């Protein structure tokens, strides 16, 4: 598969990246950010939403720090999983992402900003043209959604990242930067329910780092993932749970790969009085996966009860 023609820019500082983005926006040219490229490069080879310019963050120094309270956007998942500096729960989720070879390219920022996936969307261009495109891959031309026909409001492509739910239950904050300055939001407010917009990133903005609260060392938990192959695969469903050591009343649960965004289930946990079975049932009721990944949605929905129960086990 040939790469589409585009120009790769490699800024060496954050400021240079922001001014480059501002310049491209000003001249009306579309561009993408590339971090590790493990998701963007296959999509480009399939000619999925390609842009004439790509800005690589790989040349920027000082954005790959890994510590208990802070992880830079370009920190590689391999280093997070095996370096021993990150929180054990984050390291556990990072070690379950794809294969060891892919983890050596993949970055935290790329994993959190992962493009949503759908089997009508992640296909070669000829294939997509043969089905007359889909709502997501042909923004604005009125193609119908292939998963839920006769609705052109919402893209239901699935977010299949592993690390986001674990950072959500640890109360992570994401720090964004762009031509209009820097801002910080909680990770569970970062995502927006739509498979096309996915998150609150404005044009020209990118994720600089995530920070975790001061007392994150006192928190423990686990991440459980359903996938087709145990050695490597995207999650078909995933559940993360975390609680303060010795205090189960602080339990937080988040799920991934069930809809267009990962979600933290604060309401379900609060209404269940700490009863894990009640939490599982409430999450089962509130999620509604659609038929756009490898496994059937009914199986994924049933499995989320099992995954949440196992993640909450001490």
């Amino acid at each position, binding site marked *: *598969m040939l*790469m*589409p*023609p*585009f*120009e*790769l820019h*490699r800024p060496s500082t954050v400021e240079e990246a922001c001014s480059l983005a501002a310049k491209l926006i000003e001249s009306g040219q579309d561009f993408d950010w*590339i971090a*590790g*490229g*493990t998701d963007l*490069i*296959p999509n480009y*080879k399939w*000619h999925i939403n*390609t842009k*004439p310019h*790509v800005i*690589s963050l*790989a*040349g920027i120094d000082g954005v790959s720090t890994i510590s208990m309270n802070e992880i830079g956007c370009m920190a590689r998942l391999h280093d997070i999983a095996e370096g021993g500096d990150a929180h054990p729960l984050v390291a556990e989720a990072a070690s379950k992402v*794809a*294969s*060891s*070879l*892919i983890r*050596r*390219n993949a970055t935290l920022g790329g994993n959190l900003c992962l493009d949503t996936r759908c089997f009508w969307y992640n296909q070669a*261009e000829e294939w997509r*043209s043969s089905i*007359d*495109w889909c709502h997501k891959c*042909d923004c604005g*031309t*009125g*193609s119908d959604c292939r998963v839920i026909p006769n609705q052109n409001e919402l893209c239901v492509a699935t977010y299949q990242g592993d690390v986001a739910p674990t950072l959500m239950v640890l109360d992570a904050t994401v720090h964004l930067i762009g031509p209009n300055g820097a801002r910080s939001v909680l990770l569970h407010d970062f995502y927006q329910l739509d498979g096309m917009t996915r998150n609150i990133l404005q044009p020209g903005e990118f994720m600089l780092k995530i920070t975790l609260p001061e007392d994150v060392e006192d928190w423990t938990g686990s991440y459980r993932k359903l996938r087709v192959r145990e*050695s*490597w695969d995207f999650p078909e469903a995933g559940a993360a749970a975390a609680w303060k050591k010795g205090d189960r009343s602080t339990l937080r649960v988040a799920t991934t790969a069930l809809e267009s965004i990962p979600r933290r289930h604060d309401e379900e946990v609060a209404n269940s009085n700490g009863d894990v079975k009640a939490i599982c049932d409430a999450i089962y009721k509130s999620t509604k996966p659609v038929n756009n990944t490898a496994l059937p949605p009914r199986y994924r929905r049933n499995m989320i009860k099992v995954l949440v129960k196992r993640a909450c086990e001490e």
Partner: protein
Amino acid sequence: MVGEEHVSMIPAAPSEVWSAEVNGQNQEVLAPSNAILLDVLRDKAGCLGVKRGCDMGTCGCCTVLIDGEPRLSCLTMAQDAAGCSITTVEGLADGAHLAPIQQCFADHGGSQCGFCTPGFLITSQALLTKNSNPTDKEVACAIEGNLCRCTGYQQIIESIQAAAAIHRGESESARPASDAHPDPHPSGPEEPTMPPGHAR
């Protein structure tokens, strides 16, 4: 048809000078800005041992060592690897003498159709450099990103364990003791027929 204008007719990507040390030799070539490392290694540096399998990071056939670390060349932008020291499967052998890992793959049936073998050799070489006494589980974890449709992986794990024994100095020969067909040229030809990295 809806979306007929979908193929964007934008001009070709501009070219840039790309230089790196490939298999011990300095390479300086002109590569397009949008090139992935796999294309530069195969088309410009002449390393055809780097295989294009799935082209999306699934199969591991395109694995190369970048500064000693196994990386997927199909998912690495060429410009990101510029200035690095790159080793492909052609760079493993010492002239005409196979590296222990290569000899072990040949002797223990680690290679059948051979398409995935360059990727496996590079990944296992990286494992053995780091850990010359791996357990079977550690070997399986290291090669989880490489797919083989022929061997069923058992012979590959056996080959890697045999090479690990040579790396540890426990076994001198790469060949199993019961070999019925000894190497007629145990020291190999005196001169390599082609410089490494330029086998076509």
